[in-house]
Structure formats: C-alpha cells, structure tokens
C-alpha cells in the first residue's frame, strides 16, 4: 500500500517548507520539497545604491541576517575589485565565526535535538550513571551528577504540571526514539545550558557589529569600526579583552559538550549513517580570508562530484573563474517565468500555478553547477577539507571518528559522512574547528592592531560603466553567493543563490531532484501519522525554515496529512 504524506506547516518562521513523500512498505519512494513563500527581495534591490544593498539584504531572512549582509558587500567589492584592510577581514571573520557557532549550537540543541531525544523518559534516568557515561567522552564541567539531577527535577516538575507547553508536540514514545533515559538526560541538560552559550556568541557579534541581529558596522570597502587603543568609544584593549573572555567561555562548551554530544548521538544511532545520502555532489567556497587581498583562507573550498573524495577540484579563492561560469538556475519546476538562467542575467518574475508535482511546485529555484545539483552545508565543507588534506579539518574529523568508536559506536569513515547523521557530525566538527579559529582570528586582529595598523576601510570608487560581481560566503547552511550587476553605483541586477536554494532545490528540466528530495529516498517511516524519520533527514540540512518542520500550527492542527493512494 502506497501512502502519500504531506508535511505542510502554515505559519512558521521565515519561510515555509512543504515536504511530500510517497511511502511504500515503510520506506520513502518519492519525495518533493516545496517552498510555499515567495521572496521578491531581489526586485527590491534593483535601482538601489550599491553601497546600501547590504542593509536590505540582511532583512532577506530574520535568522541568517549577518550572512546576507556579508555576501552583499563582498559582491560589490568583487565588482569593483576593491581590497579591504586586514583589520576589516579579521573583524568580519570574527563576526562570521561567532554567528556560525551561534547558529550551529541553536540548530543542534534547540531546533533538532528533540527529533532524537525523548524528554519523557528523563524521569527514569539515573543521574549518577548518566554522569559516569558522559565522563567517558567529555571533561565538560556542566556534567556533574548534581547538575544532571537538577535538570531531571526540572523535567519531572514540567511533566507533573501537565503543561508541557512547547514540548507537548514532540513524537514522544516513537519507536525510532532509542536513546537511554541517561542519554536523554545528558543531551537535554546541554540543551538548557546551550541557551547561555548561544547568548555569548550573540554578544561577540553585538560587540563588533554594533547590534545583533542586523549588524551595523559593514561598509563596501571594509568595516566602520574605529580602532583606537586610547579611546573608550572604539575597538580598544578593553573591548578586545571582553571579546577574548567571551570566546574563551564559548570554546569549551562547543568542543567538550556539543562536539561530544553529537559523537554520542552518532554512536547511539549507527543506522543513520546509512540513510539520507542524497545528492553526492558537494560545493563549498573558501572563507575566513587571512590577508587583505584574500589570497589565503582558513576554510578551504572545492567541488566534489559523485561522492568521490579523489574527484575534488579545489576552489582556491573568490576569483575562481569556473564557479562563475558553472552556476545557473533552472526554473522548469519553480513558480517563475523562464528556463535556465545564469545569476547575473537572472530574473525573478513570478508564475504561480499551484502544486503540480510534474509541473511547477516550489518558489525555490533549482541551482545547478555545470548542470548538476549540488549539496551544500557543513558536510560539503568538511568533505572538501578532508579531501584536500586540510589539517584542521583532519584533526577534528579524525577526533570525531575516534570518539564515536570509543563509546561502542560504529567505525565511521569519511564515506559514511554522506548521510543524515554525517550532516549532524559535520556541523559539530565544523563548530569545533570554528572555535579554534575564533581564538586564532582574535589573535590576528589584536596583533595587527598592536603593530600600529588602525585602518578598517578603503573607500569605493564606482566606474561609469556596468561591472559584475559575486560575493561568496561559506555560511552556516553552506555556500551563499550574491550576484550583482552595478551600473554607475546602483544595482541593475541582483540575485542571491542561497544555501537552502541549493539543498531544497526542486527537480530540474531533466527531472533530476534536489538534495532534500533525493536524501529522503529509502528513508524509513515507521508510522506515517508521525513521520519523525522524514523530519530527521530534512532537519539534518538545517533548513532555514527549520522551524517550519514542527508538527503543529498555532491553532493546534496536526499538519502531517496522510493519504492512501
């Protein structure tokens, strides 16, 4: 018997994702990803001053504000071939690192952990045993028996009150929930602790960005932060000390709690290294530039095709010509007018038709790289780094593999990373790397200032003719690129090719599905009324509409609809 499940939230944060799957014998046979909200943002940017594009771009989305601001200024700088000072690179890098850590922490604990953690078993846990268990993988200070007991008591109180509130909607007791009560307790204790640490990451962004969300310190040509060690109102030793303190608080949580938790999760759910592979072409762009000219980067970029790490073609810097020629957006199955378009010539003219699975069915365009769909995100980031022998990537990836097998988990190799659990693990590995890099880039900034360099801005000069630029950023959800055409200082075209567009891509003119769609094939579904396993795989990509995949809308209506075909 084939059943059709439609998961379609109505009112959710920043974008509405609908997933349709056909399930036969407990396994997904076909899948469609559809974005049900239109963003005409690009239309709004046309005709605007190129220096202020970033202010609008960071309102594309409420959660990923910083990344769009950054891609926008980089796009205009690329068009002008404008270098920015080293201090500006480091300040931007610190903001991006802190934003990335914040985003990854929130994704794991607050947006997706409860797909794996059943909080209703926590009252049955033995806190002493839980503390002993987690001690084997982590020396995090928040794991004491007493700490865990206190969390257990909070959960007992919550359950006894009968008012589970936001926790009422979980798939509690689902057969796919298989963690011991002790593991559930450990992960939920860190869920609560994570609230404090994501706040610290926000503070880092706020100190350098002037405000968060919506940083205020960017400019085409650098940053607006004034550096003066003798002034109270600028970046001075006091501010730098404050930043260092926050980063030093943040790093242990990421490396000892978050990283260890995901290793424990992987060890406990080994079968999830087999599901969810999907599109095995990967794209990552280099990021965290180390010099004014952006010739060296701390995160490597590259393209991997058909899952073979040996196939890697490195992308050494943002001037890479092949990527500029390779990216195009296919509109065959998207609600727009047009066929296949290069971003600089891209148009965003709506043509809504309702959901037709063989016709148009999504507001998301289908980006293609040399005609092929690509998966982007931390997994692409880690695979590219691993394939190119990047030392920091190797260090943390190998540490993860060792940790997983040390707690009776499966023997994981790089190939197993191409899976639902691999995407979780890659995000944790990337976070551990970013925490090392946070302290490194803080040091680079401090050393450069102490050397006497206080420049942060090179003024832009706009030519009297048309120029083309692309701004690249390896964002928390993957490769982000803004493509701009600037004519006499104003935008004559603007297209953003965002990570969720790559991953949530609909089919293309050849009928080839995008990463979400193909990752769901073969995914188990134990109970069609409660498609928890589908959510696990979709959430592993960290859809920008992550919150879109909860199971109830504001009026309490069940949103997973099942039809027998």
């Amino acid at each position, binding site marked *: 018997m084939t059943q059709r499940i439609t998961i379609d939230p109505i009112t959710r944060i920043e974008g509405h994702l609908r997933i349709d799957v056909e399930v036969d014998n407990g396994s997904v046979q076909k899948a469609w990803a559809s974005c049900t909200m239109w963003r005409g943002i690009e239309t709004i940017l046309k005709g605007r001053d190129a220096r*202020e594009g970033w202010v609008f771009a960071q309102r594309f*989305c409420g959660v990923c504000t910083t990344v769009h601001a950054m891609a926008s200024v980089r796009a205009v700088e690329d068009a002008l071939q404008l270098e920015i000072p080293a201090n500006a690179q480091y300040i931007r890098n610190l903001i991006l690192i802190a934003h990335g850590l914040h985003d990854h922490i929130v994704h794991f604990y607050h947006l997706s952990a409860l797909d794996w953690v059943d909080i209703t078993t926590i009252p049955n846990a033995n806190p002493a045993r839980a503390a002993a268990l987690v001690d084997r993988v982590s020396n995090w200070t928040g794991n004491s028996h007493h700490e865990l007991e206190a969390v257990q008591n*909070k959960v007992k109180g919550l359950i006894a009150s009968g008012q589970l509130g936001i926790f009422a909607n979980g798939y509690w007791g689902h057969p796919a929930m298989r963690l011991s009560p002790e593991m559930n307790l450990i992960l939920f204790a860190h869920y609560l602790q994570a609230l404090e640490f994501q706040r610290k990451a926000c503070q880092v962004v706020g100190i350098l960005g002037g405000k968060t969300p919506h940083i205020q310190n960017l400019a085409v040509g650098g940053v607006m932060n004034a550096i003066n060690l003798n002034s109270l109102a600028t970046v001075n030793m006091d501010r730098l000390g*404050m930043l260092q303190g926050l980063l030093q608080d943040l790093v242990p949580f990421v490396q000892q709690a978050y990283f260890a938790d995901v290793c424990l999760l992987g060890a406990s759910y080994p079968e999830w290294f087999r599901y969810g592979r999907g599109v095995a072409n990967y794209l990552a762009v280099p990021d965290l530039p180390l010099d004014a000219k952006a010739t060296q980067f701390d995160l490597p970029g590259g393209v991997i095709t058909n899952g073979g790490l040996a196939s890697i073609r490195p992308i050494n810097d943002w001037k890479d010509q092949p990527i500029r020629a390779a990216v195009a957006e296919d509109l065959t199955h998207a609600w727009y007018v047009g066929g296949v378009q290069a971003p600089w010539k891209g148009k965003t003219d709506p043509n809504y038709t309702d959901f037709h699975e063989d016709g148009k069915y999504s507001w998301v365009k289908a980006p293609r790289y040399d005609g092929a769909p690509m998966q982007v995100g931390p997994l692409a980031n880690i695979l590219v780094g691993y394939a190119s022998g990047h030392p920091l990537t190797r260090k943390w990836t190998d540490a993860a593999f060792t940790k997983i097998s040390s707690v009776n988990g499966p023997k994981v190799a790089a190939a197993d990373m191409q899976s639902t659990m691999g995407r979780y693990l890659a995000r944790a590995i990337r976070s551990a790397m970013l925490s090392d890099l946070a302290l490194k880039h803080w040091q680079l900034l401090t050393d450069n200032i102490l050397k006497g360099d206080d420049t942060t801005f090179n003024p832009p000069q706009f030519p009297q003719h048309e120029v083309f630029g692309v701004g690249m950023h390896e964002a928390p959800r993957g490769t982000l690129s803004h493509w701009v055409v600037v004519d006499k200082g104003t935008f004559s075209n603007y297209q953003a090719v965002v990570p969720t567009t790559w991953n949530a891509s609909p089919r293309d003119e050849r009928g080839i599905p995008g990463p979400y769609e193909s990752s769901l094939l073969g995914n188990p579904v134990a109970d069609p009324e409660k498609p928890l396993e589908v959510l696990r795989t979709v959430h592993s990509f960290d859809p920008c509409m992550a919150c879109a995949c909860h199971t109830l809308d*504001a009026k309490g209506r069940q949103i997973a609809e099942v039809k027998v075909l």
Partner: protein
Amino acid sequence: MKSGASHPRVSIVGLGNVLLGDDGFGCLVVEVFRCEYECNPEVEIIDLGTPGLDLTPYLHGKQLVVIVDAVTADGNPGTVRTYSESDLIDCRTQLRLTDHDPGLQESLAQLRLAGSAPSEIIVVGVIPQSCAFGEGISKPVLAATSPAVESILRLLRERGFECRKRRHPEQPKLWWIFDSTSTPGPARREPAAHVTGSR
C-alpha cells in the same frame, strides 16, 4: 558581559519584517519611540526583525519586556491592543503574532525551564491591513504609531521607569520606508544617510 557593562533590565523590542508591509510596524514604533523619548541605560530599545528562536538572548533575565508587533486578531486594521503573558497563552487560538510567534512562545518556554524567563512580558500589538512584500505600511497602521508609542510610555511609567521627552527629537532612521513616515510613496532611491560609506 565580563567587563561590567551595564545590563539593561528592560527591553523594548520591535518585531517584524520591514520588507513585508504592515509586518514592519514593531520596528517602526520602537525607532520612533527611541527618537522621541530618552530612557535610562536600564532600558534597551531594539529592533530585532524576525529572530525566531534567536529572540531568547534578548528576553534572558529581564525584569520587563515590551514587544511591539503586528498581531492577527479580530478587529479593524490599525487597532492597537496590549496583551499580557497570560493573554498570549489563553488566547492562543485567536491571537497570533504574524508569522514569527513560535519564536516568542518557544523562547519563553525554554527560558522558563532554564530559570531565566523575564518577570513580565507585554505585547503591544496592532492589527495589520496587509503584510505583503514590498508594499509599504498601510495608512491605518501608520496612524497607529502614536498610540503604540504612547502605550510603551505608559507601560514604562506605570512601572516606575523614567522616560523623558527629548527636547530635540532625533530623526527616525526608517531606511526601509518610503519618502517619509507621513506620506507613503514610491521606494526611496537615494542612499540612506547612515550608510553612505563615507566616514
């Protein structure tokens, strides 16, 4: 923060997407309030856009949070209403902040469990006419700006937080809105004053 920077005890938060017509009401109101009134450093005034769960850090440990937003409720567009936290829970089926309410509900629930929820939270809501992309704010909702600003003022004063009318009001930075706050018109084309790139 480590170096003893002052911790605001009160947050006046504007929520909404400024590019979605009346949904940007909250951002507009907090900016107008900030420009017209001066508060002590214990009061933080901030436009948070549509942060979803990223709202959590801004609610953490506060004595009072006032949220200004568009709300979906029965009534005429432009009607301003205030809601307490219990209203938010009790009226959940009728009242819903446009689009991003799960962030508020879930942020609050997490903080309550972690023991750092705000002591009091009040929503100043406006009933929108239209939250469509790039349309700008509607006349009835624009006219609700002053009543909403007055509501914030009253809420703060009733609780003993000082607010002084600025002798020289600042010009609100409403870069996303149209020519001026009083005459919605075509989208502005000249660069906003604060982002011109000159220093």
